[in-house]
C-alpha cells in the first residue's frame, strides 16, 4: 500500500505532498525533511529504495525534482518505481514537456491527475488517456 507521495526539490522544498494515511500537519514537515535527507544522501549507483521507519521509500529523480513514494513492506518496489514514471509521463502529456514550474503553477491540476491514479493508497488507473479524460473534460467546459 502507498502511504504518501511527495515531490520535493533538491533544496528540500516540498512541491507537492499527498498523504494516504492521516499524518498531523505538524509532523509532515519533519517527515518530509527526513525523507529528503534520506534520498539526497544516496548516490546515483545505489538502489532507488531506502528503508524509512516502517516504510520503504521509492524515489526517482527528474532534473532537480525528487518524487518519493512511501510504501509498506509488502509492496512491490519496482512496480512503484515505474508507477512514478507513468505519473511523470502523464504530466508530460498534459503539460507537454512538464517542468517543476508547471507543477507549482498547477498544483490543483496535478492533484486532480494524481487522484485519478492513486486512491486510498492503491493504484486505480494507469491508462494515460483515462487518467486525463476527466481533467480534459473540465478544461473544455471551463473554456466554453
Amino acid at each position, binding site marked *: 500500500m502507498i502511504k504518501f507521495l511527495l515531490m520535493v526539490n533538491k533544496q528540500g522544498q516540498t512541491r507537492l505532498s499527498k498523504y494516504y494515511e492521516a499524518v498531523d500537519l505538524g509532523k509532515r514537515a519533519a517527515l518530509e525533511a527526513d525523507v529528503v535527507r534520506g534520498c539526497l544522501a544516496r548516490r546515483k549507483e545505489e*538502489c532507488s529504495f531506502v528503508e524509512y521507519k516502517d516504510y520503504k521509500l521509492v524515489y526517482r529523480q527528474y532534473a532537480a525534482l525528487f518524487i518519493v513514494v512511501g510504501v509498506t513492506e509488502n509492496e512491490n518496489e519496482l*512496480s512503484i518505481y515505474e508507477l512514478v514514471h507513468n505519473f511523470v509521463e502523464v504530466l508530460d502529456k498534459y503539460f507537454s514537456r512538464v517542468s517543476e514550474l508547471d507543477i507549482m503553477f498547477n498544483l490543483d491540476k496535478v492533484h486532480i491527475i494524481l487522484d485519478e491514479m492513486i*486512491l*486510498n493508497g492503491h493504484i486505480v488507473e*494507469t491508462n494515460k488517456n*483515462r487518467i486525463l*479524460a476527466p481533467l480534459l473534460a473540465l478544461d473544455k467546459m471551463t473554456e466554453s
Partner: protein
Amino acid sequence: MSDVVEKTLTALPSLFDSQTGAAKISNRLKQLIKSITELTSKHDEESLIKQELSAMKEQVSAPSTSMKQMREIMVRSMYCEMLGYDASFSYIHAIKLAQQGGVMEKRVGYLAVSLFLSEGHELLLLLVNTVLKDLQSTNLIEACMALTVVAQVFPKDMIPAVLPLVEDKLSHPKEIIRRKAVLALYKFYLIAPNQVQHIHAKFRKALCDKDPGVMTSSLHIYLQLIQESPDAYKDLTGSFVTILKQVVGGKLPLDFNYHSVPAPWLQIQLLRILSLLGRDDQSTSELMYEVLDESLRRAEMNHNITYAILFECVKAVYTIHPKAELLEKAARCIGNFVLSPKINLKYLGLKALTYVVQHDAKLALQHQMTIIECLDHSDFTIKRETLELLFRITNAQNVSVIVEKMLDFLRSCSDEHTIIHLAGKVAELAEKFAPDNSWFIQTMNDVFSIGGDLLQQDISNNFLRLLAEGSESKEEDDQLRLYAVDSYLTLLNGDASHLPQRFIQVMSWVVGEYSHLQECVDQSEVIRLLMKLLEQKSVSSETRVWILSALTKISDGQTDLILELAESISSSQDTILRQQAHELRHLSLDSKLHEWVLPRGAAWDDMEVDSSLSFLDGFVSEALAAGAAPYKPPHQRQEELCEQRALNLEPYSFSLPVSLSSCSITDRHSPTLLSVSSGLSGNSTELSQKAGASTLILEGVKRVWGKDGYLPQKETAVTASPVDEPSAAVQPVGQQEAAERLEPQPEPSTQTNDKQQLASSLFVGLSTQSSTSLLGKSEAPPPRFRKKPRPHGSSLSSSSSSGTSEKSSSSRTSHNTTDSFLYGSLLEEEPAGFDHTPKSITANGLGQNKDVKEDRRTNTSQILGSDMVIVRPNTIQHNPSTSSDLTTLLPADLKDLPHSDVISLTSDPSLSVSSCRVFRDEALLLVIFISNSTETDIRDVAVQLNCDQLETVSLRGNIVDCLEGRSVSVCHYALLMDDPHTNVSFTGSVSYQIQPGHTNTLSFSGTLSTADFIRPLVVTTDEYGKLWLSLSHDVKQNLKLLTDAGDPLQTTLNALKDTLQLHIVDIIGSEGIVACRLLSGAPCLLHCRVNGSALAMWLRSPLPALPDCILYHCQRALAQH
C-alpha cells in the same frame, strides 16, 4: 528520464514572463509561488506564509470575493498547508466552493476538502448534501467528481444516505461512472464493511463488467475480501485465471499498455490475488499453473516493469502449492535478478530470495557468493536486505557467524528504527539457536549494550523470563544463570557509567536473584558493586528501584552495609525509593522475615498467591477501630479530588500515618512497580489532608491507574504477596531514557578475507537441512532454550476453527469448472476483449445468468465465513434494508430482542432453511425458518440440530406434522456455551415427506462465534474494581488502536462494543475498563490502556480460555476496521 523534465529552476526568470502555465494565473497566486521559489530560510518562509494567511483570511470573508477568486484562495491554502502551516479557516470555504462553484471551482473545492479534512472531521457532514446533489446531477463530470470525493473521504455514518445512489451508478452506461462507483463501494467496505455486505453480488457483476477499467477496480475489493477469507472465494479462481490470461495475451486495448507491456499493474494485482487463493490448496493451485507459466515466459522483455511482474510471479509460484517445473523457472528468474548489474534488480532479487528461502533454503546456496558480496556492499539498503535474508536461513550451525555479521552492522548503524528491528532479530536468533551458554550471554550483552534503551521492552522481559523459568533440567539452568552472573559482575567491575539503563536493570535483577549461585564471590562484594551503581549520576530513578530490589534480595547477613545504605536513601525525594529503603531496612533487621519473604533459589511454580489478602483482615479492622478512614477505591478519590480542586489550597503531604514497612514488602519480582507508591500516596493524600502537613509533594496524586491496571489490586497484591506470578517477573518499564549507546566495541575476530571460508560458515547446514523442503518449511531444529509450556492453552479453539475452514473449502471447489467455462465463453466471444460491440449483449445475458447462480453461492458462503452481519438494536436503524422479510415471522416475544440477519442455510426444490440468531441474556436462540417453496403440503417435518461443543435445547417447533404450501414454520433452539470456543460449527438436518413413505433429508451447517455468546456485564467502576481483584488469571495483549477518528481510545472501545456486545464501564484519561460475560455465566474484565500507537489490553476471567477467545474476536473486529 531527464529528457522528460528539462526545464529547471535555472529557467525560472524567463518563465515568469512567458506564456506557459503562469499566464492564466492571477497575480496573487503567481506572487505567492514566486516568493516561495525565492525563499532562502525557514524564517523567511514563516513570515511570508503568516502574511499570506492573514491576507487570505480577510479575502475569504469579504462578500465581494468571487468563486473564481475563491478557487485561487483554495490553491493558496493548499500551499500553506503543504508547507506545514494551519489554514483551517479555509476548510469551510472549501466545502462552500464545492457546493456553489462552477465545474472547475467545484472540482477544486472537492480537492481541497479531500486534502484538508481527514476521515472523521466534523465539517465533512456539511459535504453530504452537496455530494447527494451532485450524484443526482445529469452532468457526468459532476457525478464523477462526487464519486471521487466519496471514495476519498466520507463520514461513515452518512453512508446509508448515499449508498443507494452509488449502487445505482453501478449500472450507469458510462464506464468511468461505473468504475468510480465501484471504488466508492470499496471505500465503504474499508470503513464500514457491514454496510455493503448486501451488495457482494454486485461486486461480482463488476468483476465481469465488459469494461476492463471497471473490472480492474473491482479487484481491489476482491484482494481485500480474499485476504480476509480466501476460502469463500475459491470459486472465482477460474475467472481470475481467465482474466490474467487475456491480459497477458494482449487482449486489452492498446492504451492500457505501458511501454508495450499490457496493463502491468493489473497483472501484478491479479498475481497477488491468485497467490492468496492458491496458498495451501493443491486443486486451486493446479488451475493457475498454466497462466503462471505463461506469465514467466512472456515477461522476457528487458524493462523494469516486466521485472516487477516477474517478481510478483516468482512470489506467487512459491506461495501456492508447489510445482517442480515452475519452481525451477522461478529460481532461474531470481538468479537473473540477483546477478544483475542493475542495482534495483539486485535488490529485488534479494527480496525475492528472502521470501523464497522460507520455502526452499537450498536456493540461498546457489547464490552464496553473491550474497557474501552483497553483505559488504556499499549500499545500505542492499546490506540491510542481505541481513534479512541471512536471518531467514539461520540455523544452529551458522548462527554465530550470522549474528556476528548482524552485530557488526548494528555497531555501525545510526538509524533508530533499524537498530530496534535488527537487535530484536539478534535476540530471537540467540534464544533459538545458541550453541552454548557463554555465547548466548555474550550475545545478549551485545544486544543490550548496542540496542540500549531503544530496545523493545519484551526483549529484556523474554530474556529474564527465560532465565527465571528455565528448562527441564535445573542443573543446566543454574549453569546459565551462573554464567550470566559472572559475566555481569565482570562488567560491573569495569566502568559501568556508559551502560544503558535497560541493561543495568537486567543485570541487577539477575545479580540479585542468582548471585548466591556463585560461591566464590563474596556477597558483600556484590553489594558493593550494586551500591557503586546507585551512586552514579547517570542512573535513572527507575533503574535505582531495580538495583534496590536486587540489594534487598541479597542483603541477608550484611546488616551494617545495608542499614547505612537504607539510611542514606530514606531521605530521598523519590517516594518509591524511600519506600524501598524502608523495606530494605526492615528486612535486613529481621532475617527470619527475610527468609520467609524472599526464599533463596525457590522455584517459581511453587509460589502461591493469596489474592484475597485475607491475612490483612485483622490489620484492617484494627486500623478502622483506631479511627482510620475506610478504604476508597482510587477512582472515587479521583472524583473527590476533582471536586475539591477548585479551591483546595491545602498542600499535600507525604507523611504516612500507617507505617509502610510494617505492611509492605518489596515485590520480589517487579522492582519497577511505580504503582506501589502511587496507590499508597493516593491514600495518603486523603489522610494527610486532614492532618494538614506542610510539605507540598504532588507526586503520585493523579496516578489512579498504574501500568498494570487498576491500582488497588497492585497496592494490595504487593503488600500481601511476597510471591507473585512468574509472569510478573519483569514489568514494563516506564519512560525510556535517552538513548545511551556503547561505543562500538573493537571487532572481536578478524575475519579472513577469504570469502569462500565465510560462505562455508554462513551457509553450513542449509543443504542437508532442506533437501526435501519442496513442500514447505523443513523441520527446524529444536530451540536450545525451550520454555516451559504455559498452563493455559488455546489450542482447542484454534483447532476447531481450522476444522471448519477446511470443510468449507472442500465444498466450494466443485464450482470451479462451470465457472471458468462461463468466463471463457464470456470473454472469448469477443476477441477484442472489452469493446462495446453488439455481441456484448449476449455476453451480458450470460453474465446475468451467472449472477443468479452466484447469488445463491454467496449466500451459502456467508454462513460459512463467520463474518455475518449482526443486526443489533444500535445498528438496525442505520440499515433497515438488510433485515429480510423472515424477521417478521419471529415470535412476538423475540422480536424486540437484538437479533442477527436472517441467513439462508440451505435449500432444495421443496424446502428452504434459514436461520436467525437472537441474543437473549441467558442463551443464544437459534431460530430456524423452514419454508415450503412448493404449493403442496409437506408432512412430518422434523429438524435435528447437532453441536458437540454447545449445549442445545430444543424449545419448540422442531417437529411439524404438516407444513402447508408456501408457508413457513419456525423452530428454535436455545444454545448455551459452557466452555469458550472462538468458533463453533453446528450441523443439522431436516427430514420431511412429500409423498407418504418417502423421507427426504436436507442437511445444513453453520458457524457461531464466541461473540454470539457474549453479553454486556453492567457494573459500576466500584464493582469492577472488586471483581478485578477477585480474579487472578491475567492475559495481556497489544491491540491495534483505531486512530482514524476522534479520540482513539473511545473509537476503539466503541468499535469493540459494537461487534462484541461489551459494556464500557468507565474511561479515565488514557485508560478504559470494559466488562462482559459469557451469557449469564463467567465474567470477563478488560482493562485497556493507550500505549503509543497500540492499545494494551489486560483481560481477567475465571475461565482461562475466555480471554483468549475474546482477544481473538477483538483483534478481528479491529482488523476489519
